[in-house]
């Protein structure tokens, strides 16, 4: 009963607070404006890449890889995705993991993003988080009348500018999704890091195979 009461009163307090934080656009500081500008630029570039019908899948992949390397904190993402196994890989394994994870992300998200070609991102608001992080909330509004898709960007300062750390699409943090899968592979294989490397190689192969099928079907 007391748990219920405290749950209730907390909820009453927390709900308006959450709304304020999320929507009552606080006077935008220089930092949040920088974050918004960053997200606008990156999303426009990403949409341009996937909407470019003249580019071959390989060219699209190269462009997306460049975009990612320039604008995402790949090291931090790769480290985060290992969860409690961050210290498990040796030097050589770590180098290979870094490469595979980049490949994997490029291939997975180029495929997943094709849904959003020719769409535009609308920024809803931004807020700072701690000293060197920011969250930008946005949504993709479809010209087709489909329900908008909410996209939140978790940014972190690196080398004097914002970089992407994680992206939340309709409630799902993508790096957290990958982390749960990566750590599960290592754990179910008794802490063997090579198992994860092997799974990543296989999966990259499967995504490539899936791309080919997709291209054939579309033509």
């Amino acid at each position, binding site marked *: 009963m007391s*748990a*219920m009461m*405290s*749950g*209730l009163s*907390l*909820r009453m307090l*927390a*709900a*308006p607070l*959450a*709304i304020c*934080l*999320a929507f009552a656009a606080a006077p935008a500081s220089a930092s949040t404006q920088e974050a918004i500008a960053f997200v606008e630029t990156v999303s426009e570039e990403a949409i341009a890449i996937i909407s470019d019908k003249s580019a071959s899948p390989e060219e699209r992949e190269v462009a997306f890889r460049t975009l990612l390397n320039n604008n995402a904190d790949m*090291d*931090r993402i790769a*480290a*985060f995705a290992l*969860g*409690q196994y*961050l*210290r498990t890989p040796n030097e050589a394994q770590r180098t290979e993991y870094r490469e595979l994870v980049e490949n994997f992300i490029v*291939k*997975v998200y180029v*495929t*997943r993003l094709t849904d959003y070609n020719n769409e535009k991102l609308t920024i809803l608001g931004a*807020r700072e*988080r701690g000293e*060197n*992080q920011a*969250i930008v909330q946005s*949504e993709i509004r479809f010209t087709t009348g489909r*329900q*908008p*898709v*909410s996209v*939140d960007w978790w940014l972190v300062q690196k080398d004097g500018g914002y970089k992407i*750390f994680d992206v*939340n699409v*309709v*409630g*799902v*943090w993508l790096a*957290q*999704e*990958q*982390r*749960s*899968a*990566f*750590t*599960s*592979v290592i754990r*179910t294989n008794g802490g063997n890091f090579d198992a*994860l490397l092997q*799974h*990543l190689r296989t*999966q990259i192969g*499967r995504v490539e195979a*899936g791309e080919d099928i997709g291209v054939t079907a579309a033509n």
Partner: protein
Amino acid sequence: MKLSLERGMAAARFCFAALLAASLSLAAPGGVAIAQAQDIAASDGENDPLEPMNRYFFELNKFFDTILLKPVATWYDGVVPEPGRDSVRNFLDNLRSPVILANDLLQGEWDRAGTTASRFGINTTVGLLGLFDPAAGWGLPQHSEDFGQTLAVYGTPEGPYLFVPVLGPAPPRDLTGFVVDQFFDPLTYIYWDRSSTVPLIRFAVNGIDQRARSLDTLDQIERTSVDHYATVRNLYRQIRNNEIANGQRDFDDLPDIDNLNFDTNEPNTPGMRY
């Protein structure tokens, strides 16, 4: 014939998550997931003590999906034109209104309860017994609620992960919610040749429709997961928490990533939240 397998369930989550996100701007102030925080405090790790059994049922559901649900859903998707499928969806959604309304009220979400009641009135009459959804166009977008979410709002933790045959991901809180919702559902009390006929037909059609709506998405998730089971578990929890929070994001609740990198020597174990 129960058909909604793990993917059907996952599909449902995706649909609801998308709908919730869409209704965000118009929906009333939402409940904040107290339960979410408690879940995390209570469980450091995957909280999946029955993982071997869960994985077994997961594979079993995948098998039945491959031989039965997916082919039926693909056929349905190909044969029934989109307006027809949309009307099936609208009709089923409208039938669920009493359950949503009951849970809106139990959560003290008066505005959302009003929306649900108005939607039911409008769509049942103007929308021809729910085959159409004019209410959405009049500023009353759909949202979903269930008793699992109600329990979460009052602080009930999710409990250990559970993957059950047919239903899919159903940890104790949500499994309880599923059972309780049957009592809120007028369809449960409709007697055809047997009392279970109407609810079972609804269950099957709902599963097929939701599976048909997520053919591409679920294929893509399977193709791009290094561990399909773990990915579905994580997606289930994230989407569920988002539903419980009625689409409100809690950014204070995110893991600490400040000193996260490969080079520091300090032991670093970012909290395993999901």
